[in-house]
C-alpha cells in the first residue's frame, strides 16, 4: 500500500493537534480520591520584636520637605526663607536670538511671592497668611525667640486665603493677590502675594537679597504645610521692573530670586528619646524594629498574612481628624541609627529610599495614627515578611520614619518591647510546610 506524503503530513498534523491538549484538573473527593495530607493554616501572635530603638536628628527643619506653619492647639510654627540676589540687567526680548544686549532697570516696581500650600484643613476658615520681613542673617540656628522682634514690627502683607479663593477666578484685582486650587483632593493651593515697590523695597546695594517669614492665623485649625525647596518647590519670588526700550518704558521681570535657605521655627522642642519608641517630629526621629521570626516559620512556612501591631503611648497631637503618616521600610543593612533603607530599585544609584506606593509593599508600607486617638495601629507587612523569607541574609528590621520626614511638629510615641503589656507584636498567619511524598 502506498501512502502519499500529504496523507502522512495530515496524519502528523492531526496527531500533533491531539498532542497539544492537556487538562488534568479534577475536583477532589477527599479523602478517598485525594493525596494524603492537608494544607494547614496556623494563626498566631508572636512577640518577635526586640532590641527596638529610637534615634533623633535625621531631618532638620531646613532640610524638610515641608515648611510647617501652625497657630493652634498651643503650637506656634512659622516658615522662614532667605532669597538670593538677582541681576540688574535683562534682555528685553529673551526669546529672540538677535537680542543680545542687556538693559538696566529704570525702577523696580513690584514683586510677587508664590507659595504652595501642600496640606491644610479645609475647615480652617479665614485662613490668613501674614508676610514679615526678616533679617538676612537667618539660618539653621535661628530660633523662634530670635525672630520675636521682626515678627512683631515688620509685617509687610496680610492675605486672607479663604476670601481670595472665593473671589471670581481666585483673583483679588485690587491687591493683585490670587489663590488657585492645585489638588481638590488634598486641598493643595497656590497662593500669589503681590508686593508694591515700597513693600518689596528692592535695594541695589544687596541686589534684592531678602529674608521673609510667614505667620498664619485662622478662626480655628490653623495648621498648614508649605512646600519647601526639598519638597514640591519652595517660595518663588519675582522682581518686576521698568526698562527703557528705545525710549519706551516697558515692564519686565527683573529676576527670580533663588531660595538660599528655607526652614521653619517653632515652639516645639526636639523629640525626646526615652525607653519607648519615637517616630517623626522635628528634627525627625526614627525607630528601628528588629524582628527575630522563628526559622521554622521564616524558612519553611509560607506566610499568607502578617500584621504588625503598634500601640501608641499617647494619642498623637495635631489637627483633629488628621493622621500622622509614617513609613515602615526594610533596611539593607542593620547599622543601628545609620541603617540605610533599601534603595529605590528604579534608581539604585540614588541615596533615596523606596518611596511608598503600590507595588513596592515588599520593601515599604505606610501606616497612620489618628490624631487624638490612641488606637492600636495595625499594619499589613505580609510582603515584607515574605521578602525576609526569600532573602534570608537580609536583616529582619524595619525603620519607622515620618512621611514626609519633618512634616509633623509632634512625634508619634509608641510603646517598645520594654513595655511587655503593650509591646509591638506580629500577628502572623502561615501555612506550614506541606509534607509531600507518601504515595
Amino acid at each position: 500500500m502506498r501512502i502519499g506524503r500529504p496523507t502522512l503530513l495530515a496524519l502528523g498534523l492531526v496527531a500533533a493537534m491531539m498532542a497539544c491538549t492537556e487538562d488534568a484538573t479534577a475536583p477532589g473527593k477527599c479523602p478517598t480520591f485525594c493525596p494524603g495530607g492537608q494544607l494547614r493554616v496556623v494563626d498566631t501572635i508572636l512577640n518577635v520584636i526586640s532590641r527596638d530603638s529610637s534615634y533623633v536628628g535625621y531631618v532638620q527643619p531646613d532640610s524638610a520637605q515641608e515648611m510647617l506653619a501652625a497657630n493652634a492647639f498651643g503650637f506656634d510654627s512659622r516658615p522662614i526663607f532667605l532669597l538670593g540676589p538677582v541681576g540688574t540687567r535683562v534682555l528685553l526680548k529673551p526669546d529672540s536670538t538677535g537680542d543680545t544686549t542687556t538693559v538696566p532697570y529704570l525702577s523696580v516696581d513690584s514683586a510677587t511671592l508664590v507659595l504652595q500650600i501642600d496640606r491644610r484643613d479645609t475647615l480652617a476658615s479665614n485662613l490668613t497668611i501674614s508676610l514679615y520681613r526678616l533679617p538676612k542673617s537667618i539660618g539653621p540656628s535661628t530660633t523662634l525667640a530670635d525672630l520675636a522682634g521682626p515678627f512683631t514690627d515688620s509685617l509687610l502683607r496680610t492675605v486672607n486665603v479663604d476670601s481670595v479663593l472665593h473671589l471670581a477666578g481666585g483673583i483679588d484685582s485690587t491687591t493683585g493677590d490670587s489663590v488657585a486650587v492645585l489638588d481638590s483632593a488634598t486641598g493643595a493651593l497656590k497662593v500669589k502675594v503681590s508686593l508694591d515697590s515700597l513693600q518689596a523695597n528692592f535695594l541695589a546695594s544687596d541686589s534684592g537679597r531678602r529674608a521673609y517669614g510667614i505667620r498664619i492665623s485662622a478662626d480655628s485649625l490653623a495648621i498648614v504645610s508649605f512646600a519647601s525647596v526639598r519638597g514640591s518647590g519652595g517660595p518663588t519670588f519675582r522682581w518686576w521692573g521698568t526698562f527703557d526700550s528705545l525710549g519706551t518704558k516697558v515692564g519686565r521681570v527683573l529676576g527670580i530670586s533663588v531660595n538660599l535657605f528655607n526652614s521653619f521655627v517653632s515652639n516645639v522642642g526636639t523629640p525626646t528619646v526615652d525607653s519607648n519608641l519615637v517616630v517623626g517630629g522635628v528634627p525627625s526621629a526614627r525607630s528601628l524594629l528588629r524582628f527575630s521570626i522563628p526559622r521554622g516559620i521564616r524558612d519553611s512556612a509560607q506566610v499568607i498574612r502578617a500584621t504588625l501591631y503598634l500601640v501608641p503611648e499617647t494619642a498623637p497631637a495635631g489637627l483633629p481628624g488628621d493622621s500622622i503618616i509614617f513609613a515602615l521600610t526594610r533596611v539593607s543593612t542593620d547599622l543601628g541609627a545609620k541603617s540605610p533603607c533599601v534603595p529605590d530599585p528604579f534608581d539604585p544609584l540614588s541615596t533615596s529610599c523606596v518611596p511608598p506606593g503600590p507595588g513596592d509593599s515588599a520593601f515599604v508600607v505606610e501606616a497612620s495614627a489618628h490624631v487624638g486617638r490612641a488606637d492600636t495601629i495595625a499594619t499589613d507587612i505580609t510582603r515584607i515578611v515574605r521578602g525576609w523569607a526569600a532573602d534570608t541574609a537580609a536583616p529582619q528590621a524595619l525603620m519607622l520614619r515620618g512621611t514626609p520626614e519633618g512634616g509633623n511638629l509632634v512625634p508619634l510615641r509608641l510603646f517598645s518591647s520594654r513595655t511587655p503589656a503593650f509591646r509591638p507584636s506580629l500577628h502572623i498567619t502561615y501555612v506550614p510546610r506541606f509534607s509531600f511524598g507518601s504515595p
Partner: protein
Amino acid sequence: MRRALPALLGCALAVMGSRRLVAQDSQFGVRGLGAPGTFASVRAWSTGGAFAAFDGMSSLTDAALSSVTRLTAAATSVDDYRRVNDGTNQSSLRSSRFPMLQVAGPVFGNLVVGGGFSTYLYRSYRIEVPGTIVIRGLPENYVDTFGSDGAVTDLRLAAAWSFSPRLVVGGGFHILTGSSKLTANRVFSDSSAYLNAAQTEEESYDGLGVSLSVLATPAPNLRVSGFLRSDNRLRAEVSGFQSAKNDLPTTFGAGIQWTVTPEVKVAGALTHANWSVSSASGTAFNTTNWSVGGEFGRSSLPVRIGVRGGQMPFGPGPTAPTQLGVSAGTGFIFSQGRGILDFGIEHLRRTGGGLTENGWILMAGLTVRP
C-alpha cells in the same frame, strides 16, 4: 515513499516533542502509588493487550524479542479523553503521554537484545479541593490544588535466546526511575487579605526489577508464553530525603496465541500482580487482568480488536476498582516494510469506591526498521 520517510519521522518527532512525558491516567492512582502502565505497543494495545506477550515491541515479556528479526525501533504516543464522575462532581480530563520507546535487534546467533523505556506507574494528576476556614475570626473561602506531574519509568535491558524454533527464553533487568513535580497550592478567595501559598517539590523514584519469560511453540500455529517479573521496592525521595518506601509486586502471567490462518490471529492473556504488598496510603489490592484480542486481514492493513478487563491496584473501597476496555486499531506498512504506522482506539471504563471513569484513548505508534 522513500522521500516520505523523513517527513513522517519529522511528524512523529513533532508529536513526541510537543508533549510532556507524563499524563494523568486514572483517578484511582491518586491515592496509591499510581496507575500501572500497560507495557504494550500500539499494535498489542489495540488487541486489548492480548498480543503483548508475543510482540517484540511490547515490554511485557522479554522472550517476545525473538520476533524481532532486524534492528527495530518503536515509539508510542497516547492521548486520553476521560470523564470522571464521583457521584457529586463530573469533570472532563484530557492528557497526552509518550509511554514507550523500544529498540531491539539480533546480535548474533539466536540472541536478540533489546531495551528502552516504558511507563511503570503514571503519577500525574491535579486535584482541586475547595473549603472554608475561620481565620482571625472570619470565614475565608479557599481552593487547595494538589498536583503531581510525572511518572515512574521502567528502563529495561533484555535479551531473548532461541534454543530452538519452538522454545525461546528471555530475561531482563529493570531500573525504575523517574520523577514527579509535586505542587500544593492554596488560593484564598479574598486575595487582598491573604496571599496564596504555593509549594513545589521534586520527587524522584528508584527501584530495581528482574524478569524472566518463556515462549513456546507447541504446535505450528500455536504459541504460548509465560512470564514472571519481580520488582523490589519503590523508594521516593523529596529534596534528597527519603519520603516513602513501598514494596513492589511480583507479576506473573501467561498468554496464548493462535494463528488460525495467516490472516486471522487471536490471542488471550492473563496477568496477576500482588500489589497488596505495597504499604502505600489507601488500600492496595492484588490484581488479575485478562485480555482477549485478534488481528485480522493482510499484514499491510490489518484490523485489530480486543477486550481487556480486571482490576486496578489502588482504591478506597473494600474491593479493588475494576476496569473494562474495548479496543480496535489498524496499521500501515510503508517504505518496503521499513516503517509501520499503527493507530488504535480504546474505550475504557473504570469503577470503584463510588467513582466512575469513562474515556477514550487514542494511540499512535511508529515502528522503524532501517
